[in-house]
């Protein structure tokens, strides 16, 4: 049995989204949270390109995926800078410790 390319990519999209959600749920480390967001966003941008491929408008899908790439990069840059600052100030990357912090 051979699966077509769109069906396989749909599996990849769903898998990436699911793995990203699981990654967000199972960790408390701030940098691992950014990794989870990145994995989810990869699923999202792949979904844009797949939708363009299926509807026959590849270039529009690609243009949207480009916007997703830019937004995703900015989000991870700011989140990583935030993580570095949190680590410098509070000495931990643990989200649980941060949420119960009293200073």
């Amino acid at each position: 049995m051979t699966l077509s390319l769109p069906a396989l990519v749909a599996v990849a999209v769903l898998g990436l989204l699911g793995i990203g959600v699981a990654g967000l749920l199972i960790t408390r480390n701030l940098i691992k949270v950014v990794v989870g967001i990145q994995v989810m966003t990869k699923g999202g941008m792949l979904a844009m390109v797949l939708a363009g491929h299926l509807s026959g408008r590849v270039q529009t899908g690609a243009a949207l995926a480009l916007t997703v790439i830019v937004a995703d990069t900015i989000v991870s840059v700011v989140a990583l800078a935030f993580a570095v600052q949190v680590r410098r100030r509070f000495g931990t990357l643990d989200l649980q410790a941060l949420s119960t912090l009293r200073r």
Partner: protein
Amino acid sequence: MFDLLIVAATLLCALQAIRSPRLLMSALWLASASALTALLMYLLGAPEVAVIELSVGAGLVTVLFVFAINIAGEEVADLRALVPRPLAWLAALGAMGLGAWMAIPGLRAPGGPLPEPAFAAVLWEQRGLDVLLQVVLIIGGVLGVLGLLAEGRAHVRKEKQS
């Protein structure tokens, strides 16, 4: 067969990125997942965006991750969340099932490629607003990072004085 192999490798890399206990290994697995995603985009007929994803997603973001991990330290990381692990995977599987239920009817959409202008024309003319938004986002991101880093320096200076 080749496609199946790439999809399986992508999912494996993403899974390892989530599960790997060391942050640095996690960043490297994420980079390979990104490269394989770019390959899938190329196979779907969007080479321009695949190149950008390869250079930005697998290159720039990985450099940033390694940089941040260097500064923040490899604090490992048996930080388990409050949600028990099986429950988290169950929730993720449920979300995937719902997504599949919604997405599968769309896969049978009829269609060959429609006549369409080139990528650059679509991006700059039809999606001009998106380009504007991207510029604003980049400026906002740069300002945000500058603000965060500057605040850190001020904090250090204050500590030295006191």
